[in-house]
Protein backbone atom coordinates (compact mmCIF):
# COMPACT_ATOMS: atom_id res chain seq x y z
CA UNK A 1 0.00 0.00 0.00
CA UNK A 2 1.28 3.44 -0.98
CA UNK A 3 2.20 5.85 1.73
CA UNK A 4 -0.63 8.14 2.63
CA UNK A 5 -0.07 11.69 1.39
CA UNK A 6 -0.73 14.13 4.20
CA UNK A 7 -3.46 16.64 3.51
CA UNK A 8 -2.31 20.19 2.93
CA UNK A 9 -3.85 22.62 5.34
CA UNK A 10 -6.07 24.95 3.32
CA UNK A 11 -6.97 27.13 6.25
CA UNK A 12 -4.82 30.05 5.11
CA UNK A 13 -6.23 30.01 1.59
CA UNK A 14 -8.72 32.71 2.50
CA UNK A 15 -5.97 34.92 3.87
CA UNK A 16 -3.88 34.52 0.74
CA UNK A 17 -6.75 35.34 -1.57
CA UNK A 18 -7.70 38.30 0.62
CA UNK A 19 -4.17 39.58 0.24
CA UNK A 20 -4.34 39.30 -3.54
CA UNK A 21 -7.75 40.91 -3.63
CA UNK A 22 -6.53 43.91 -1.67
CA UNK A 23 -3.46 44.18 -3.87
CA UNK A 24 -5.62 44.37 -6.99
CA UNK A 25 -8.02 46.80 -5.39
CA UNK A 26 -5.15 49.16 -4.67
CA UNK A 27 -3.21 48.94 -7.91
CA UNK A 28 -6.00 49.05 -10.44
CA UNK A 29 -8.49 51.65 -11.53
CA UNK A 30 -12.00 51.10 -12.69
CA UNK A 31 -12.60 54.21 -14.77
CA UNK A 32 -13.71 53.69 -18.32
CA UNK A 33 -12.00 56.04 -20.69
CA UNK A 34 -14.30 57.89 -22.97
CA UNK A 35 -14.08 61.05 -24.95
CA UNK A 36 -14.75 62.92 -28.14
CA UNK A 37 -12.99 61.26 -31.03
CA UNK A 38 -11.39 63.43 -33.67
CA UNK A 39 -9.06 62.95 -36.59
CA UNK A 40 -6.38 65.57 -37.07
CA UNK A 41 -5.73 66.69 -40.62
CA UNK A 42 -2.27 66.04 -42.05
CA UNK A 43 0.08 69.02 -42.22
CA UNK A 44 -0.44 70.99 -45.42
CA UNK A 45 2.24 70.84 -48.09
CA UNK A 46 4.29 73.98 -48.36
CA UNK A 47 3.10 74.99 -51.81
CA UNK A 48 -0.36 73.49 -51.49
CA UNK A 49 -3.14 75.60 -52.85
CA UNK A 50 -5.83 76.64 -50.46
CA UNK A 51 -8.99 75.04 -51.76
CA UNK A 52 -11.64 77.57 -52.62
CA UNK A 53 -14.85 77.08 -50.72
CA UNK A 54 -17.95 79.11 -51.42
CA UNK A 55 -19.00 81.36 -48.62
CA UNK A 56 -22.40 79.74 -48.32
CA UNK A 57 -20.71 76.43 -47.57
CA UNK A 58 -18.85 77.65 -44.51
CA UNK A 59 -20.18 77.87 -40.99
CA UNK A 60 -17.80 79.99 -38.97
CA UNK A 61 -17.49 79.31 -35.28
CA UNK A 62 -15.05 81.43 -33.37
CA UNK A 63 -14.26 81.19 -29.68
CA UNK A 64 -12.32 84.09 -28.26
CA UNK A 65 -10.07 84.26 -25.24
CA UNK A 66 -12.98 85.20 -22.99
CA UNK A 67 -14.88 82.09 -24.11
CA UNK A 68 -17.37 84.14 -26.08
CA UNK A 69 -18.78 82.61 -29.23
CA UNK A 70 -18.87 84.35 -32.56
CA UNK A 71 -20.97 82.51 -35.13
CA UNK A 72 -21.01 83.73 -38.73
CA UNK A 73 -19.94 87.24 -37.80
CA UNK A 74 -22.46 87.68 -35.00
CA UNK A 75 -22.39 86.99 -31.31
CA UNK A 76 -23.51 83.44 -30.68
CA UNK A 77 -24.67 81.41 -27.76
CA UNK A 78 -23.62 77.89 -26.83
CA UNK A 79 -27.27 76.98 -26.16
CA UNK A 80 -28.37 77.72 -29.71
CA UNK A 81 -25.21 76.43 -31.39
CA UNK A 82 -26.58 72.92 -31.81
CA UNK A 83 -29.79 74.02 -33.51
CA UNK A 84 -27.93 76.45 -35.74
CA UNK A 85 -25.43 73.80 -36.76
CA UNK A 86 -28.22 71.37 -37.55
CA UNK A 87 -29.99 73.90 -39.72
CA UNK A 88 -26.76 74.72 -41.52
CA UNK A 89 -25.90 71.09 -42.22
CA UNK A 90 -29.38 69.93 -43.14
CA UNK A 91 -30.57 73.03 -45.01
CA UNK A 92 -34.12 71.66 -45.04
CA UNK A 93 -35.64 74.48 -47.09
CA UNK A 94 -32.80 74.52 -49.65
CA UNK A 95 -32.12 78.17 -48.93
CA UNK A 96 -29.69 80.13 -51.04
CA UNK A 97 -27.45 81.23 -48.19
CA UNK A 98 -27.05 77.76 -46.71
CA UNK A 99 -24.75 75.07 -48.16
CA UNK A 100 -25.17 73.34 -51.47
CA UNK A 101 -25.97 69.68 -51.72
CA UNK A 102 -24.46 67.14 -54.04
CA UNK A 103 -26.47 64.07 -54.85
CA UNK A 104 -24.46 60.93 -54.24
CA UNK A 105 -25.58 57.36 -54.52
CA UNK A 106 -24.90 55.46 -51.34
CA UNK A 107 -25.56 51.81 -50.59
CA UNK A 108 -28.83 51.20 -48.68
CA UNK A 109 -29.81 54.87 -48.97
CA UNK A 110 -29.97 55.34 -52.72
CA UNK A 111 -29.42 58.83 -54.08
CA UNK A 112 -28.98 61.13 -51.14
CA UNK A 113 -28.21 64.86 -51.26
CA UNK A 114 -25.02 65.17 -49.24
CA UNK A 115 -24.42 68.59 -47.78
CA UNK A 116 -21.18 70.23 -48.78
CA UNK A 117 -21.13 72.45 -45.74
CA UNK A 118 -17.99 72.75 -43.69
CA UNK A 119 -17.87 73.87 -40.09
CA UNK A 120 -14.85 76.03 -39.55
CA UNK A 121 -13.87 76.10 -35.90
CA UNK A 122 -11.35 78.61 -34.75
CA UNK A 123 -10.14 79.25 -31.26
CA UNK A 124 -7.73 81.58 -29.59
CA UNK A 125 -4.72 80.45 -27.60
CA UNK A 126 -6.41 81.89 -24.55
CA UNK A 127 -9.65 79.95 -24.96
CA UNK A 128 -10.28 77.60 -22.07
CA UNK A 129 -10.23 73.91 -22.82
CA UNK A 130 -13.59 73.48 -21.14
CA UNK A 131 -15.27 75.89 -23.57
CA UNK A 132 -13.52 74.27 -26.51
CA UNK A 133 -14.86 70.86 -25.49
CA UNK A 134 -18.37 72.27 -24.98
CA UNK A 135 -18.29 73.67 -28.53
CA UNK A 136 -16.91 70.43 -29.96
CA UNK A 137 -19.58 68.56 -28.03
CA UNK A 138 -22.41 70.69 -29.46
CA UNK A 139 -21.07 70.29 -33.01
CA UNK A 140 -20.77 66.53 -32.56
CA UNK A 141 -24.24 66.42 -31.07
CA UNK A 142 -25.66 68.24 -34.08
CA UNK A 143 -24.13 65.74 -36.49
CA UNK A 144 -25.17 62.78 -34.33
CA UNK A 145 -28.74 64.03 -34.11
CA UNK A 146 -28.96 64.46 -37.87
CA UNK A 147 -27.61 60.96 -38.37
CA UNK A 148 -30.14 59.59 -35.91
CA UNK A 149 -32.97 61.39 -37.68
CA UNK A 150 -31.93 59.98 -41.04
CA UNK A 151 -31.55 56.54 -39.55
CA UNK A 152 -34.98 56.68 -37.93
CA UNK A 153 -36.56 57.91 -41.13
CA UNK A 154 -35.01 55.19 -43.29
CA UNK A 155 -34.70 52.24 -40.95
CA UNK A 156 -36.99 53.07 -38.07
CA UNK A 157 -34.41 53.02 -35.32
CA UNK A 158 -31.56 55.21 -34.09
CA UNK A 159 -28.07 54.75 -35.42
CA UNK A 160 -26.79 53.12 -32.25
CA UNK A 161 -29.23 50.23 -32.68
CA UNK A 162 -28.21 49.44 -36.24
CA UNK A 163 -25.83 46.52 -36.22
CA UNK A 164 -25.02 46.30 -39.93
CA UNK A 165 -21.70 48.11 -40.31
CA UNK A 166 -22.33 48.89 -43.99
CA UNK A 167 -25.50 50.83 -43.18
CA UNK A 168 -23.67 52.74 -40.44
CA UNK A 169 -20.88 53.68 -42.85
CA UNK A 170 -23.47 54.74 -45.39
CA UNK A 171 -25.23 57.04 -42.95
CA UNK A 172 -21.91 58.46 -41.83
CA UNK A 173 -21.12 59.26 -45.45
CA UNK A 174 -24.52 60.82 -46.01
CA UNK A 175 -23.99 63.22 -43.11
CA UNK A 176 -20.25 63.73 -42.86
CA UNK A 177 -18.56 65.14 -39.80
CA UNK A 178 -16.82 67.96 -41.60
CA UNK A 179 -15.19 70.12 -38.98
CA UNK A 180 -12.18 72.04 -40.11
CA UNK A 181 -9.97 73.61 -37.51
CA UNK A 182 -8.08 76.66 -38.61
CA UNK A 183 -4.52 77.31 -37.62
CA UNK A 184 -4.71 79.02 -34.23
CA UNK A 185 -3.99 82.67 -33.80
CA UNK A 186 -2.65 84.42 -30.80
CA UNK A 187 -4.84 87.45 -30.54
CA UNK A 188 -5.79 87.60 -26.91
CA UNK A 189 -2.42 86.76 -25.39
CA UNK A 190 -1.63 83.87 -23.13
CA UNK A 191 -3.75 84.74 -20.17
Amino acid sequence: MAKKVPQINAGSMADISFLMLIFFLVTTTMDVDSGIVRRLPPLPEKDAEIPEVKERNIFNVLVNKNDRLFINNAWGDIRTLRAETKEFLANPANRENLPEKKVESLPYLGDYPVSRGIISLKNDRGTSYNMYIQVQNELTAAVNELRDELSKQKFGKPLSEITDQDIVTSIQKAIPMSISEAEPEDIGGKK
Partner: protein
Amino acid sequence: MARFKKGKSGGVPAISTASMPDIIFMLLFFFMVTTTMREVTLKVRNRMPEATEVQKLEKKALVSFIYIGPPTQSKLYGTESRIQLNDSFRNVGDIPEFIYVEREARVEADRPFLTTSLKVDSEVKMGIVTDVKQELRKVGAFKINYSTRKKAPKPSN
Protein backbone atom coordinates in the same frame (compact mmCIF):
# COMPACT_ATOMS: atom_id res chain seq x y z
CA MET B 1 -41.88 16.44 23.47
CA ALA B 2 -38.62 15.88 25.21
CA ARG B 3 -37.32 14.05 22.16
CA PHE B 4 -37.00 17.21 20.18
CA LYS B 5 -34.93 19.12 22.72
CA LYS B 6 -32.34 16.47 22.98
CA GLY B 7 -29.58 17.22 20.39
CA LYS B 8 -29.32 20.97 20.36
CA SER B 9 -28.27 22.05 23.76
CA GLY B 10 -27.61 25.77 23.73
CA GLY B 11 -25.27 27.98 21.64
CA VAL B 12 -25.41 29.03 18.01
CA PRO B 13 -23.80 26.53 15.65
CA ALA B 14 -20.61 27.81 13.98
CA ILE B 15 -20.99 28.94 10.39
CA SER B 16 -18.78 26.97 8.05
CA THR B 17 -16.02 29.12 6.58
CA ALA B 18 -14.88 26.48 4.16
CA SER B 19 -16.29 28.36 1.18
CA MET B 20 -14.66 31.62 2.20
CA PRO B 21 -11.64 31.22 -0.12
CA ASP B 22 -13.98 30.55 -3.03
CA ILE B 23 -15.96 33.70 -2.37
CA ILE B 24 -12.83 35.81 -2.03
CA PHE B 25 -11.38 34.29 -5.20
CA MET B 26 -14.58 35.14 -7.01
CA LEU B 27 -14.26 38.75 -5.90
CA LEU B 28 -10.60 38.75 -6.87
CA PHE B 29 -11.33 37.55 -10.39
CA PHE B 30 -14.13 40.07 -10.74
CA PHE B 31 -11.78 42.91 -9.93
CA MET B 32 -9.02 41.51 -12.13
CA VAL B 33 -11.35 41.42 -15.10
CA THR B 34 -13.17 44.74 -14.67
CA THR B 35 -10.26 46.99 -13.74
CA THR B 36 -7.10 48.08 -15.41
CA MET B 37 -3.67 48.65 -13.97
CA ARG B 38 -2.86 52.16 -12.93
CA GLU B 39 -0.24 53.24 -15.42
CA VAL B 40 1.18 56.50 -14.27
CA THR B 41 1.28 58.56 -11.15
CA LEU B 42 -0.49 61.78 -11.93
CA LYS B 43 1.59 64.86 -11.36
CA VAL B 44 -0.91 67.26 -12.86
CA ARG B 45 -4.44 68.04 -11.85
CA ASN B 46 -6.83 66.18 -14.07
CA ARG B 47 -10.38 67.34 -13.71
CA MET B 48 -11.65 66.80 -17.21
CA PRO B 49 -14.56 68.69 -18.78
CA GLU B 50 -17.94 67.07 -19.16
CA ALA B 51 -19.48 66.14 -22.47
CA THR B 52 -22.43 64.14 -23.70
CA GLU B 53 -21.35 62.95 -27.14
CA VAL B 54 -18.64 60.63 -25.98
CA GLN B 55 -17.39 57.40 -27.40
CA LYS B 56 -15.68 54.68 -25.45
CA LEU B 57 -12.03 54.02 -26.10
CA GLU B 58 -12.07 50.59 -27.62
CA LYS B 59 -8.69 49.00 -27.12
CA LYS B 60 -6.85 50.20 -24.09
CA ALA B 61 -3.61 48.64 -25.22
CA LEU B 62 -3.58 50.84 -28.30
CA VAL B 63 -3.93 54.12 -26.47
CA SER B 64 -1.17 56.42 -25.38
CA PHE B 65 -1.98 59.13 -22.90
CA ILE B 66 -0.86 62.73 -22.74
CA TYR B 67 -1.76 64.55 -19.55
CA ILE B 68 -1.94 68.33 -19.46
CA GLY B 69 -2.83 70.43 -16.45
CA PRO B 70 -1.54 72.59 -13.65
CA PRO B 71 0.86 70.65 -11.37
CA THR B 72 -0.66 69.23 -8.23
CA GLN B 73 2.37 70.28 -6.21
CA SER B 74 2.02 73.92 -7.11
CA LYS B 75 4.50 75.04 -4.45
CA LEU B 76 7.20 73.03 -6.15
CA TYR B 77 6.34 73.37 -9.82
CA GLY B 78 4.24 76.52 -10.08
CA THR B 79 0.76 76.91 -11.46
CA GLU B 80 1.49 77.10 -15.18
CA SER B 81 -0.02 74.15 -17.08
CA ARG B 82 2.47 71.40 -17.82
CA ILE B 83 2.57 68.35 -20.04
CA GLN B 84 3.08 64.99 -18.41
CA LEU B 85 4.30 62.03 -20.46
CA ASN B 86 4.66 58.73 -18.62
CA ASP B 87 5.91 59.76 -15.20
CA SER B 88 7.56 63.12 -15.72
CA PHE B 89 6.98 66.65 -16.89
CA ARG B 90 7.99 67.21 -20.48
CA ASN B 91 7.99 69.94 -23.06
CA VAL B 92 6.07 70.11 -26.30
CA GLY B 93 9.27 69.16 -28.16
CA ASP B 94 9.40 65.77 -26.44
CA ILE B 95 6.10 64.60 -27.90
CA PRO B 96 7.45 63.23 -31.23
CA GLU B 97 9.92 61.02 -29.37
CA PHE B 98 7.18 59.85 -27.02
CA ILE B 99 4.98 58.90 -29.97
CA TYR B 100 7.85 57.04 -31.66
CA VAL B 101 8.55 55.07 -28.49
CA GLU B 102 4.85 54.26 -28.12
CA ARG B 103 4.76 53.05 -31.73
CA GLU B 104 7.85 50.91 -31.30
CA ALA B 105 6.27 49.22 -28.32
CA ARG B 106 3.37 47.90 -30.42
CA VAL B 107 3.23 45.15 -32.99
CA GLU B 108 3.57 46.54 -36.48
CA ALA B 109 0.07 45.51 -37.48
CA ASP B 110 -1.41 47.56 -34.64
CA ARG B 111 0.51 50.77 -35.23
CA PRO B 112 -1.97 52.48 -37.56
CA PHE B 113 -4.68 52.10 -34.92
CA LEU B 114 -2.73 53.83 -32.20
CA THR B 115 -4.85 56.53 -30.59
CA THR B 116 -3.58 59.41 -28.54
CA SER B 117 -5.80 60.31 -25.66
CA LEU B 118 -5.51 63.88 -24.47
CA LYS B 119 -6.36 64.06 -20.80
CA VAL B 120 -6.56 67.76 -20.26
CA ASP B 121 -7.76 69.66 -17.23
CA SER B 122 -10.75 71.86 -17.96
CA GLU B 123 -8.98 75.04 -16.87
CA VAL B 124 -6.08 74.66 -19.27
CA LYS B 125 -5.83 77.27 -22.01
CA MET B 126 -6.06 76.09 -25.60
CA GLY B 127 -2.58 77.41 -26.49
CA ILE B 128 -0.71 74.46 -25.02
CA VAL B 129 -3.29 71.99 -26.37
CA THR B 130 -2.90 73.46 -29.85
CA ASP B 131 0.90 73.13 -29.63
CA VAL B 132 0.50 69.47 -28.69
CA LYS B 133 -1.93 68.91 -31.56
CA GLN B 134 0.50 70.48 -34.02
CA GLU B 135 3.28 68.16 -32.81
CA LEU B 136 0.98 65.18 -33.20
CA ARG B 137 0.18 66.25 -36.75
CA LYS B 138 3.90 66.48 -37.53
CA VAL B 139 4.55 62.89 -36.50
CA GLY B 140 1.38 61.58 -38.11
CA ALA B 141 -0.50 60.59 -34.98
CA PHE B 142 -3.82 61.73 -36.37
CA LYS B 143 -6.22 59.72 -34.26
CA ILE B 144 -6.89 61.64 -31.09
CA ASN B 145 -9.43 61.51 -28.36
CA TYR B 146 -10.32 64.39 -26.10
CA SER B 147 -10.90 62.61 -22.84
CA THR B 148 -13.99 63.81 -21.02
CA ARG B 149 -16.24 62.81 -18.23
CA LYS B 150 -19.63 61.62 -19.28
CA LYS B 151 -22.55 63.87 -18.52
CA ALA B 152 -26.12 62.71 -18.67
CA PRO B 153 -27.59 63.97 -21.93
CA LYS B 154 -30.06 66.81 -21.78
CA PRO B 155 -33.64 65.78 -22.54
CA SER B 156 -34.19 66.56 -26.18
CA ASN B 157 -36.93 69.01 -26.99
